[in-house]
């Protein structure tokens, strides 16, 4: 299944959760290639396995079996340390509930991953630039609790971008936002994909949000039932 142009190549992924004595097959022989520049939306009903698939692709969880190749490296065989390094340098995350550090200011939240890789002043400058890009230049010293939901999600996007990742993962990023803020966030994703060439994998419930993607993957009961490329 692996394709040389794929940025991610997942083959025969299986994942089963054990809820007491009940086994839930969240992923069943899922194979998926994602190419550089794709904006992939994964949809499905609750329990279809879309978040599980994304978490496995995003190196936040390990499949029970199968392999995931990211940039030519099998991440399922990597050590914890290698996976941490991969997440830091090459992957960006946007979670449903913003997942910001409450005690850090907007600027500090964004600059933190970059501080792992270089001098603080460089990280700060880069974070300031990103916050300006997202219109948050007047909120740099604010704590997350002092920002609106939309502003917090923009902050999370800025943090995800700080180390120039090759892949962005977004897990229902608009679920807690009003329609205006949700639209803004999706526009940002589209811009990042179209103008910045970022590869984005997004999980969503909302049918109207699939319009922003160029590829739609639909899951039912842990299997991919459709994989549709929508435009070039």
């Amino acid at each position, binding site marked *: 299944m692996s394709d040389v142009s794929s940025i991610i190549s997942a083959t025969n992924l299986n994942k089963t959760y054990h809820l007491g004595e009940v086994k839930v097959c969240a992923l069943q022989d899922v194979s998926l290639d994602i190419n550089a520049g794709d904006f992939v939306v994964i949809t499905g009903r609750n329990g279809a396995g879309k978040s599980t698939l994304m978490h496995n692709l995003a190196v*936040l*969880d390990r499949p029970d079996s199968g392999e995931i190749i990211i940039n030519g490296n099998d991440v399922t065989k990597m050590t914890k340390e290698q996976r*941490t390094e991969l997440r830091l340098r090459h992957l960006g995350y946007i979670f449903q509930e913003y997942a910001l550090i409450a*005690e*850090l200011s907007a600027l500090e939240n964004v600059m933190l*991953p970059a501080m*792992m890789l270089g*001098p*603080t002043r460089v990280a700060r400058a880069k974070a300031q630039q990103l916050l300006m890009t997202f219109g948050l230049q007047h909120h740099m010293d604010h704590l997350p609790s002092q920002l609106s939901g939309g502003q917090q999600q923009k902050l999370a996007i800025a943090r995800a971008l700080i*180390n120039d990742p090759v892949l962005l993962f977004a897990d229902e990023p608009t679920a807690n936002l009003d329609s205006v803020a949700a639209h803004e966030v999706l526009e940002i994703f589209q811009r990042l994909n179209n103008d910045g060439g970022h590869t984005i994998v997004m999980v969503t419930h909302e049918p109207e949000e699939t319009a922003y993607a160029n590829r739609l993957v639909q899951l039912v009961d842990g299997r991919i039932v459709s994989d549709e490329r929508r435009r070039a």
Partner: protein
Amino acid sequence: MKRHEAKIPFFLIWRFTTRSNKWTLGLTIFLMGVAFINLVFMTSLFNGIIEGSNDQIINTYVGNVEIGPSDHLDTITHASDVAAIARRTDTVTGVSAQMEVPATMKFGTIELSRSVVAVDPDQETMVTNMSKHMVEGSYLQKDDTDGIMIGIQLAGGPDVELNMSSLKGVHAGDNVQLTAGAVTKEFTVRGIYNTKFMNGDSRAFITQQALATLMPSLNDQATIIIVKTEKKDDERKVIDALKINGVTGTFTTWVDYAGVMKSVTKSFLSINVLMSFVAIMIAAITIFIVIYIDITDKRRQIGILRAIGIKPWIIRMAYVLQSAVYSFFGVLIGTGLFFGVIVPYFVAHPFALPIADVTLIIDPADFIIRAESIMLVALVSGLIPAIFVTRMKILNAILGK
């Protein structure tokens, strides 16, 4: 560890500490302080009891060093010369020659065989502190030839522990009949003292001038000469100096008189070790629970940090540092409360124990060890839950599973 990573734990801990809920932070640090006080209080109380009883032996009975007559003699002759040599010795702050004579004491129908000690009252105050513990009447005057000073346990009374073997209720101003050798004489009780040290409080004192009226042949003789030094531990040095200066006789120190108190002290030391262990365990469990709750409360945050690529050791280090900050300030606050409030309170209102009025005494080295123990316990208490949370699955940490 890469160069830039080392700063992250400090960056995180500074922000976590300065921007966390101030009440929670204050309460956590206060709890650490209380745990530290608990650890220090018991040992300082035991130290106070041990020191108190030792001080009682020194200050009410035998001083630091006791010079006795040579083995073949009953008394020290030329006692004033020996006392003068002792007074000239380094670190000696007081010397008193005591002549103890067997006597019969009669008060009303009660007759007791007791020794009476003849002293120079002025010199005696330089060694013992009976003059500061007068509960009735006044201390002896140097030229008093028919006055006697009696300890509370000999004077007796309904509330006195040794009332059965006492004069059963003598008061200042009463007359007692004293027979020493072949001479019997009426003495007026000038005062009654209560040092709370039973051995000391079972004695009776008269002046050397008074003894001269009873037994003139004992002039300038002493059964013992007691010596007070600037501090404990000077005893050996003083004894050596006295020997060099030609003082002969037997030399004993207050430690030899500790007697029963030695075994009490030994028991206290054993109890102290046990109580310290229990206090450390209580402190450890308290601190562990406080930090465990704190870290568990931040499980999602730790999951997020891991998800964005912050290495587990950095997260652990941040929480260990946080524990270090908690415990450091806890120890500071505990120290402040202990020395600023608790110790002064017990100096003003000592524990009234049967052997002495006891205050809190802490050995500086012991204090430092206990402070270090609290900090060590806090570091381990921070590290264990941090390891636990950083080993959890990232998603479980973030989703609170």
